[in-house]
């Protein structure tokens, strides 16, 4: 287990997440892609913290911030899904061709 291997695993998670975020039509599956990318980001941060920062606590703090970003993304994302579903009965990206209220 080295920094390079941890970063490669993180890169794989980010790559899969990017694929999911770009390819999925369902809003929730799209959000899963974003979550997977943030998952990779956390892993990268933890790898750098463990192997390159000498245990400086700021690295762990950054991981906590990424986790907060994840929670925000999830909450706002689901709220938007609910709002769109209420207005348009839609759960697919293709059914939204306009941003009008």
């Amino acid at each position, binding site marked *: 287990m080295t920094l*390079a291997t941890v970063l*490669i695993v993180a890169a794989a998670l980010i790559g899969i997440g990017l694929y999911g975020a770009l390819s999925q*039509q369902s809003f929730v599956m799209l959000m899963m892609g974003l979550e997977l990318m943030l998952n990779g980001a956390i*892993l990268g941060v*933890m790898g750098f913290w463990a192997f390159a920062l*000498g*245990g400086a606590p700021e690295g762990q703090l950054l991981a906590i911030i990424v986790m907060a970003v994840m929670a925000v993304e999830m909450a706002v994302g689901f709220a*938007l899904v609910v709002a769109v579903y209420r207005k348009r009965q*839609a759960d*697919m990206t293709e059914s939204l061709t306009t941003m009008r209220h």
Partner: protein
Amino acid sequence: MIDALFLTLSALAIWSGWRVFRVDSMVRASFLLMVSFIAVGLIAVLLAAPYIGIATIFMMAVEMMVMALFMVMFMMNPAGLNPMVMVHQHRFAVVAGIVAFAGLTAAALLSDLPSRPVPESAEVVRALGHELLGPSMLIFETAGVTLLATMIGAVVLSARSGRYGDSDAGSVPPGLTPGGEPAGRKPDDGRGRPHHHGGQ
């Protein structure tokens, strides 16, 4: 031993992350995503960050349960009874994912990465606690306020009324007698009607 564990957990994280977009059932997809998160949390524990690792596991377990509930409530095919392929711009997405992976891997392999591992004797959780409630308290508190703002925003967005109109527009109060007419004023029929029917 740690290397073998790391390899296993990495393989599990990547495999389950990949399966998220390959299974037919959306509920299964959210549980696979949870497996991926748990594997990453355990890798964080291996990396000498027990607090972050366990916090990730707890948070993601709850988050993915919520996600599974949303799947059942809103999405088509939550149980995976039919084959499901719901993708657009598939080839572009595959290429983008591979390019991102290759680019990041190349950056990781070609960079001159510093090597300052965590000392064996370091009390990492204690250090994190002192950091959170000491020098970085402002950042930590800002994250808390951000989460509060998120909660308010989520309620505003998902409440029945949008930005305009009364907050109770569209809601139907229960009748005064069982099965009777709804109490209170009648909701305005012309507003907030859906423009499209059906998912497509």
